[in-house]
Every structure is written in structure tokens, then in C-alpha cells.
């Protein structure tokens, strides 16, 4: 037996094969690209236990998929000409710049503005990241049939509207990139903030970071806003391990063991944030990354720290005016200037329809009313918060807060997490 198989080999190579074959065959043959990628993996599981792992497993998988595609195309006379294109492409050399381009271009196709927003991430995960339908369903906490439906509908749209696999050059309109950045943001946030399976969530974050890295380093498709988005991901992911204690319970920022923060990742995030400052336009990703950097680099959480955060949120509100931003700003204001400042800010959004079912709004109100010395109001809002849907660790956290009057309440873990786009974009 030779060669070690890295944990995500099948996923990675599946994404590469699907992307490159989709370029060659055209998006209308996406299903064929997926079928041969899958078939190559099945051949591997049937053959490798007997023969051992090939010296270069990636090259073997890609070669096998390519041969399968060629066989199929030769049988379909209308597509026979394409067989030669396939034969020329997909060189076994593992990661050529072309293969990187293909994965990015595939992501641009999956996040095409003509595809419904909720299907974009699902399709990207399926084709570029090699996620199964079941995993996608678990990541989004939806039924598997619903996940499959989303993907099928998106593929049908690609065919019906004849969406193209486009080169990533200067001619690509800006809104196409916006849509990809938004898709990556959703992917990361789903991994970072959802209540699903822990391992799967961490895979989502890793994939979002990997693809954001490919995009940010791409000569024509990259740019300051991509660096900013990547910085945001790195800075949030760096603190991921310290967000919960050994029982899976949420820890407040001030309680987190900072020795568990990933210093190297924080440094990388700060460096990316520096690079992102080269542009002329400040995007929401710049500001959110800056806030994350403030959290990750602060030595202590004094008033000055919270003032800086509140200011960053105020700026963010000017370009991304959502009630969630206001909510986060209110918490920072309360930390900087006392609970009444925060409550004044929260009044503005207390009856906002988009936040009707958002448990963190009553949770913030409860915490701040308690700090202001009004236990009765606090209890009322804790009840409201607990009546709404939230993840199990968040629920335990809220229960702990509501039951223990002595607990020193504070921001981050429950209140200053990244702005949930699922709510913000309602």
C-alpha cells in the first residue's frame, strides 16, 4: 500500500473535476461532469483496497474521470467533437492555475444573480466543494429533499437561461463579484453561526476561507473587498475554538481563554486587512473585518475599545443599514457609555418587523435592563428571548443568564457575533 489519502481528497478532487469539465463541456452538461466525478470516486473505493492507493491519487481520480467523460462523449455522436477537448484538458498535474480559475469561474456560475439566492450556496457546495446533498441539508437545517430541490432547480435555471461559464477577466460585471462575495459570506456564516453538526460547520468555514483565498489572490478577479472578506473570515475563525467551554456552552468574550485563539490566523487576518486598505471603496466587509480585528487584538475590553467598536458599527450602518447593525452597535454603546445609551439605541429597532423572531434582540434588552437595575423588565425580555428559536448552546446561555442575577453580562459571544445575513437581508 502506498500513499496516504488526505482527509478531504475526494471532496477536493471532485470539485476540481466538476469545475474543469463544466468549463469544457459547457454548463448545460453540468450533470455529466458531476456523474463522471462521482463515478471516478466509486471506482477508487472499489479498486484501491485491492491495488493500494496510487502514487498520485489526485492524478488518478482526475484521469479516471476524464476517461469516463471521453467514453461517454464518444458514444453521444452529437458531442463526439468535445471528446478531444476533454482529452487535452484536465492534465494530471494537480493544481495548475487553470484548475484554480475553473473553480472560481464555477463559483461565479453558481452564484449567478439569476439563480435564487438560497440556491447559490447550496449549488456551490455541491459542485465546487464536493459536498453531498445530505451534508448541505444538515448545514442549512433543512430536509434533504428540500436541499435536493434547490440544487435541481438551480441546475435547470442554468440550462434554461443558458448561463455561461465565463472567464474571470476585467469584463466581468461588478455585480457578479458582489454576488460571489455574498455567497461566500453566507457560507461562512452558516458554518460559524448555525446550530448544525459541529464538524460540518467547521468544514463550511474552511471551504469559505479556501475559496475566498483563491479569489483574493486571483490576478483579475481579486481586489480589496476580497481581501477584506478573507480577513473577516480568518479573524472570526481564529477565535472559533475558544467560543465554547468543554460542555459546549457559550463563553463571553471576556471569559474566553485567549491562549486558544489561533495567533497565526489572527496575524494573517490582520495582514489581509492591511492589504484590503489599498482600494478606494470601503465595503461592509472592510468594516466587519475591522470590528473582528478590534475584538481579536484588544488587550483589554475597556471603554475605549467599545467606543471604537461602536464607531465602526456606526460607519457600517451608513453603508449597510440593517437593524442587526443597530443591535450590535447598541451593545457596544452600552459597554462604552453605560446601559442607558444602549437601550436608547435599541428603542429604534425594538418593533422592527425583521427582528420579530430574532432572539438576540430581547436578549440584549434583557441584559441591558438588568444592568440598568430593572430586574422586572429584564425578566420580561428574557422570557421573550427564550420563547424564540435559537441554538442549544445559545439557549443554555440565555437560561444561565436569566436565572443567575450575579452573572456579569457582556457582549460578544451572544450579542456581537458576525451579522447574520439571513436575518439582515430580510
Amino acid at each position: 500500500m502506498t500513499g496516504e489519502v488526505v482527509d478531504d481528497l475526494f471532496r477536493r478532487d471532485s470539485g476540481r473535476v466538476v469545475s474543469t469539465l463544466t468549463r469544457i463541456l459547457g454548463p448545460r452538461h453540468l450533470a455529466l461532469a458531476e456523474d463522471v466525478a462521482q463515478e471516478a470516486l466509486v471506482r477508487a473505493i472499489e479498486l484501491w483496497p485491492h491495488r493500494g492507493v496510487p502514487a498520485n491519487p489526485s492524478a488518478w481520480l482526475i484521469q479516471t474521470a476524464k476517461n469516463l467523460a471521453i467514453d461517454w462523449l464518444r458514444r453521444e455522436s452529437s458531442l463526439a467533437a468535445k471528446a478531444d477537448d476533454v482529452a487535452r484538458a484536465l492534465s494530471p498535474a494537480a493544481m495548475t492555475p487553470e484548475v484554480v480559475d475553473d473553480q472560481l469561474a464555477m463559483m461565479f456560475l453558481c452564484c449567478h444573480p439569476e439563480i435564487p439566492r438560497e440556491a447559490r450556496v447550496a449549488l456551490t457546495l455541491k459542485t465546487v466543494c464536493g459536498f453531498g446533498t445530505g451534508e448541505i441539508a444538515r448545514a442549512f437545517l433543512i430536509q434533504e429533499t428540500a436541499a435536493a430541490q434547490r440544487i435541481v432547480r438551480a441546475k435547470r435555471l442554468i440550462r434554461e437561461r443558458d448561463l455561461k461559464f465565463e472567464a474571470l477577466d476585467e469584463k466581468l460585471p461588478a455585480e457578479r463579484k458582489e454576488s460571489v462575495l455574498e455567497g461566500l459570506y453566507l457560507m461562512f456564516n452558516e458554518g460559524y453561526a448555525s446550530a448544525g453538526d459541529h464538524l460540518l460547520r467547521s468544514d463550511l468555514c474552511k471551504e469559505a476561507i479556501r475559496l475566498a483565498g483563491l479569489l483574493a489572490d486571483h490576478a483579475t478577479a481579486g481586489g480589496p473587498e476580497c481581501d477584506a472578506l478573507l480577513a473577516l473570515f480568518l479573524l472570526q475563525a481564529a477565535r472559533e475554538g475558544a467560543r465554547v467551554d468543554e460542555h459546549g456552552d457559550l463563553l463571553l468574550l471576556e471569559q474566553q481563554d485567549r491562549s486558544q485563539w489561533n495567533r497565526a490566523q489572527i496575524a494573517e487576518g490582520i495582514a489581509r486587512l492591511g492589504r484590503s486598505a489599498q482600494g478606494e471603496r470601503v465595503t461592509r466587509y472592510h468594516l466587519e473585518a475591522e470590528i473582528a480585528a478590534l475584538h481579536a487584538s484588544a488587550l483589554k475590553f475597556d471603554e475605549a475599545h467599545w467606543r471604537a467598536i461602536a464607531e465602526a458599527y456606526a460607519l457600517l450602518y451608513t453603508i449597510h443599514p440593517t437593524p442587526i447593525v443597530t443591535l450590535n452597535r447598541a451593545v457596544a454603546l452600552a459597554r462604552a457609555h453605560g446601559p442607558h445609551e444602549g437601550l436608547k439605541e435599541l428603542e429604534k429597532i425594538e418593533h422592527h418587523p425583521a427582528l420579530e423572531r430574532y432572539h438576540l434582540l430581547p436578549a440584549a434588552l434583557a441584559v441591558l435592563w438588568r444592568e440598568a437595575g430593572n430586574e422586572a423588565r429584564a425578566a420580561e425580555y428574557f422570557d421573550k428571548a427564550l420563547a424564540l428559536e435559537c441554538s442549544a448552546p445559545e439557549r443554555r446561555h440565555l437560561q444561565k443568564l436569566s436565572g443567575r442575577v450575579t452573572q456579569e453580562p457582556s457582549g460578544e459571544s451572544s450579542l456581537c457575533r458576525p451579522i447574520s445575513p439571513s436575518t439582515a437581508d430580510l
Partner: protein
Amino acid sequence: MNQYILMLHHEPKVFHSDDLGPQQLQEIYNKYRAWRDRLAAEGRVAGGNKLDDTTGRVMRANGDGKVHVTDGPFTEAKEVIGGFFVVKADSYEEAVRIASDCPHLAYGTVEVRLIQV
């Protein structure tokens, strides 16, 4: 030591399910690999291979003296022999024990036969 053949029967296309994404397929592969590596480390593996699922033919002599050929194995059998391992064991019981933790049991059946010498 005797040699035993472990024939891996399964339904055609058992791994061709939409539910099995790349990660699940890799996990399946890892199980087979771990099982085989353990046997190899114990010096029990004598051979094995995959059989092609797509080109089988079944030949049968008809009463009239002619040989009748049908496409197989799909059309003839619900299950195919997808592959086999040859293992060394001291007794049939031991061979059965080896087969009993073969990951293939999750996807099909394993037939254990002594190879007569």
C-alpha cells in the same frame, strides 16, 4: 495455513447513490483500507481484486449442444460479485471471523470459501 476466498456480493450500483457525496465515499474507502491494512499487517492477505461490473457474460450450454450467451451479470442476477479477497487462515472459523468485520457487510454479503489445494 489454508487460503480462503472472500467473495464480495452486492447489488450493482450500490455506491451510486445521490445520498453518497464525496466525503461519504471517502469514509467508505477508509474503512475498506483500514480493514485490509490490518490483515496485511498480520500477514493474512494473499491476494484480491476487483471484478469489472460492466462486461460480464453468462454462458450456458443449451440442450441442443449450442452455447447460449446472455449479458450478465446485471440481467441475470440481482447481485454481482464485485470483487474478492484471498486471505490466509488456520481454519474456516477463523476465515469467517476475518470476514465478519469486513466493511463490505454494510453494503452487501461476503461469501467465504476454502480454496482447495
